[in-house]
């Protein structure tokens, strides 16, 4: 297998090297890629969409159809992970053992299934494999998370003017929650954001995007032609484009954030949702 792999990759590489000889020189301003389509985008974006970040404009307007499916790809990844991993029923052989720690002494005890711990404030439930107890980590994460989330919101909202947008912002928001899940434990997160909410929000995010497009369609123009939204948003058509881009970016953000959480929950608990990383 190693030899076959070597041969195939060398062959591919050789062909690519051979073809690269015909490429325009690197960073050549007069290459076809830089002279054919991109000038239009660079020069007309402001006029046509009033969004200074060309990447955002192209992403969410000129090629918004791509981006819509990109969001759908992310959604389907979350859904596939859920579909593959999530187990609601346990195998017969497995009995669940829950672990508790006595907060004062640090003694850990196991409780077999069927038994219960007498109600007491002195015990906290912990994971069997991983017992995060670092006070420093917990506290600093707790302090950091609001700022990270604020930054994430900024990235989404400010995507028109600076690098970033729904996708990056969504990942940051998702990462903040994942960070919380790592520093505390998975249960804490699931108590705050239920699985159902994550799953529904994920679909809602994509729905916001495609729904915006479908709304244009209902208003009598082509799919995703944001101009038609002007009467609804109460602005002129050009600004409507800019606003609509914000709307879809929010949709992307919601979808991506929740998918990241969903993926993490499923992967780190192998679909059992009892204990995570």
């Amino acid at each position, binding site marked *: 297998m190693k030899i076959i792999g070597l041969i195939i990759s060398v062959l591919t590489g050789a062909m690519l090297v051979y073809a690269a000889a015909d*490429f325009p020189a690197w960073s050549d301003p007069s*290459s076809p890629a830089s002279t054919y389509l991109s000038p239009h985008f660079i020069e007309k974006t402001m006029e046509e969409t009033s969004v200074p970040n060309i990447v955002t404009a192209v992403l969410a307007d000129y090629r918004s159809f791509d981006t819509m499916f990109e969001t*759908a790809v992310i959604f389907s990844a979350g859904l596939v992970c859920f579909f593959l991993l999530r187990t609601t029923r346990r195998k017969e052989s497995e009995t669940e053992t829950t672990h508790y720690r006595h907060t004062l002494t640090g003694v850990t005890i196991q409780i077999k299934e069927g038994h219960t711990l007498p109600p007491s404030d002195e015990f906290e439930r912990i994971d069997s494999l991983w017992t995060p107890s670092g006070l420093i980590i917990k506290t600093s994460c707790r302090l950091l998370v609001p700022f990270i989330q604020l930054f994430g919101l900024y990235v989404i909202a400010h995507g028109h003017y600076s690098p970033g947008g729904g996708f990056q912002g969504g990942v940051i928001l998702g990462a903040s929650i994942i960070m919380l899940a790592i520093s505390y434990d998975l249960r804490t997160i699931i108590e705050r954001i239920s699985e159902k909410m994550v*799953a529904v929000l994920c679909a809602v995010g*994509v729905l916001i995007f495609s729904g915006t497009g479908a709304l244009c369609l209902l208003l009598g123009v082509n799919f995703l032609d944001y101009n038609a939204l002007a009467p609804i948003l109460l602005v002129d058509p050009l600004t409507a484009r800019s606003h609509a881009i914000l709307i879809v970016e929010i949709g992307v953000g919601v979808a991506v954030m929740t998918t990241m959480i969903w993926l993490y929950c499923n992967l780190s608990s192998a679909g059992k949702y009892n204990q995570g990383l």
Partner: protein
Amino acid sequence: MSQQYPALLVVVPLLSAMIISIAGWVNKRWCFPIAVAALGVAACSSVGLLLQVLDQGKVIYLMGGWPPPMGIAYYIDHLNGLVLPVVSIVALLNLIAAKKSIEQQFPDKIGPFYSLYVLMVAGLLGIVATGDAFNLYVLLEIAALTGYGLLAMGEERAPLATLNYLYMGTIGACFYLLGVGYLYIVTGSLNMVDIAGILPDLYQSKAVLAAFIICMVGVWLKMAFFPLHAWLPNAYTYASSAATGLIAPLVTKVMIYVMIRLMLTVFTPAFVFSFLNVSDAIVWLAVIAIVTGGVLALAERDLKKMLAYIIVAEVGYMVGGAWLGNRDGMTGAILHIVNDALMTLCVFLVVGNIVYKVKSYAFENLQGLFRKMPFTMGAFVIGAMSIIGVPPTCGFFSKWYLITGAIAAGHYAFMAALLFSSLVSVVLFFRVFEICFHEPFSDNHGHDHHSEAMDEAPLSMLVPLLIVAATLIVVGLYTGVIVNQIIQFAIPASLV
């Protein structure tokens, strides 16, 4: 609304996939009706599109109102006008047929399953409809990802088989993406028609050649063309029957469509057949694919894997036909996309019914099925006849065009391979029929034979199956119409 068909085609399934996903958390009973409605709308709009294409030629739809090459446009011509209804109708029929087995197999994951299913159909329809090379990649990935999910939920070995498929599929898609990148670097455009307009000046460029080769290899990987077919049989065999019913008929066929689209529209026949001189080699590969597929199928002792290897052989038919470099061969390849999708659906629905009732598809468990499930087996016979290529089932007519193409191109090995494959199919299917018909043996000269009563699959599985079986014959009889009214216009006049 009629000018919005191209958008409805893709958007309605996409939106409903989300709604189904939400409905799955609220009330599972809503999922199936929404899915059927969504695919119904898609099927209606695809048929509407076909009628529009027949009426006015090409239909162009600008996504977001941006004119190409700035924005993404959907181009519907006779080629994808023909393939779209096939994809949507096959998906719809399988969805209806699969309802019971989905409920049987994934009782607590109905929502995600339908959602993935509909999303995958949206992806496949998008691949066929799009006129943008990069958009095709995105849709390819959406169809692939959802496909992995659907395929991996099956028997114990399904995840491993699917992971292998995932590796291969990712390499394939990445190769395609790389090829598009090569095209972009030399042309600066992503729109297929636009690229085709720029390319003729660049035929000498090594980058264009490399782009073509990389794209083709990528697409071949995804369609499981001969040396790259290893992932297919396992992935299809161990999956649930609801998933294979969708994926086996459509994915390879859609990839063949992509190949033909690249050959005809993007690179144009002038480049593919006249400038490059590789047709012969690829037809030979197709010959090997057909023969290997047949021989490997002979070695299998279970129905689903046997059919999976037949798909490998069928892919050889279509690739070979498309690469013969003449009109008849191309006609045969395009016609076979339609026919093969239908007949693969037919046989896989049969497998679905058998699995639903017998819980197995190994040969030794198929005994006495003719008595037990006469209608299912009747449809199986028709499907088998079509794969063998017996008139008036549709399989014969595409084979006819492929063979005429082979004769016209003087490629007698390809013709021999097609005939060989027909003969092998006879052996393959009659081996199954013998088991279903004769066994279990009784010594009393067959007099007290098969006392078991009839035990057919439920109506909701049977009716779609019978519709498909009837369609095989109807399509066969209307071959003349399909070829003269549609396929003839799908092939550029430059290809003689």
